[in-house]
């Protein structure tokens, strides 16, 4: 078998970029077809293809790293850069929605009553469920750090417990937020207040769900002995993502829930 004379990873040819691209085609065309003709078949097919692609692509990365040893220090450095750049792109994504919020709320138009919150909008009390949500996410930031230290110290049981607690806190946040959405006295159709509120908090909620899923995968991997005390980048990436989700919430809470109420 030929051996490489370098520490980098020459990946095997893979079908997943193609299937992922086709999934994107199906989801976007499917969205247009759904909007015009009310059928969800194409969009649903795209979603299934996306899930299949994600499962197999990430499964292969775990095989390449944990089972084949391809994630040498220079390769891991590249993965770190990649995750940081991805999170940075997500920061810019949210920045746009904050821009929209501040654009509308700093100079409220006469149509809104010249004030913020606009006339007729009953805002949520920032010191009720939103404050609990803030405490929940801050606590989950502590538990994920506890999990990291447990992994680094080789404490298997503690790592599993603290990671599980982090995920449960994430679920608790999602459940509380879902309840808030249901009970809210305003909807997404209630002018620019409704739009900025639900789009910004809605995308944040989606990221909480994504982050919780990433952490859950890490929990399964930790239980299956994939992580060692000095090599567990998958977990670190999940923890970085989770802290990012927490920070976005803090900005949402301060800007939309508190200042905007």
């Amino acid at each position, binding site marked *: 078998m030929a051996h490489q004379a370098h520490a980098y990873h020459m990946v095997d040819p*893979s*079908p*997943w970029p193609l299937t992922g691209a086709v999934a994107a085609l199906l989801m976007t*065309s499917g969205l247009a077809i759904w909007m015009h003709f009310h059928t969800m078949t194409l969009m649903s*097919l795209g979603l299934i293809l996306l899930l*299949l692609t994600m499962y197999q692509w990430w499964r*292969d990365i775990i095989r390449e790293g*944990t089972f*084949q040893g391809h994630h040498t220090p220079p390769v891991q450095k590249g993965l770190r850069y990649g995750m940081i750049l991805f999170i940075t792109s997500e920061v810019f994504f949210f920045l746009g929605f904050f821009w929209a919020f501040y654009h509308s709320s700093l100079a409220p138009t006469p149509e809104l009553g010249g004030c913020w919150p606009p006339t007729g909008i009953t805002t949520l009390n920032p010191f009720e469920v939103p404050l609990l949500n803030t405490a929940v996410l801050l606590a989950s930031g502590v538990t994920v750090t506890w999990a990291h230290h447990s992994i680094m110290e080789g404490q298997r049981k503690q790592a599993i417990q603290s990671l599980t607690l982090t995920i449960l806190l994430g679920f608790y946040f999602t459940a509380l937020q879902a309840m808030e959405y249901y009970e809210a006295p305003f909807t997404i159709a209630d002018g620019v207040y409704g739009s900025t509120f639900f789009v910004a908090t809605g995308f944040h909620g989606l990221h909480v769900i994504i982050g919780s899923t990433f952490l859950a995968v890490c929990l399964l991997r930790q239980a299956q002995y*994939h992580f060692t005390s000095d090599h567990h980048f998958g977990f670190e990436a999940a923890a970085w993502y989770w802290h990012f989700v927490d920070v976005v919430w803090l900005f949402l809470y301060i800007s939309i829930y508190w200042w905007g109420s």
Partner: protein
Amino acid sequence: GRRHTAVQQMARRSICSSARRQVENKVPQKQKMFQEDNGMPIHLKGGSSDALLYRATMVLTVLGVGFTLYELVKASFPQKKD
């Protein structure tokens, strides 16, 4: 006294061992399987279930492209309602 503590210790130990089954560390087996020099690409190296899932995904991919083209062409020619 000492006997009482021994009974307590035994009770604790038996509760602990029967409460959950241990997850076995299968990483060394997996490492051996995925490092075998059999020329298989990573997405098929895990065995027949890999091939099944791959085939299913590819079928959906090809059918999906066909279905998209059909729907888009259909949407490009508005149906006249009598």
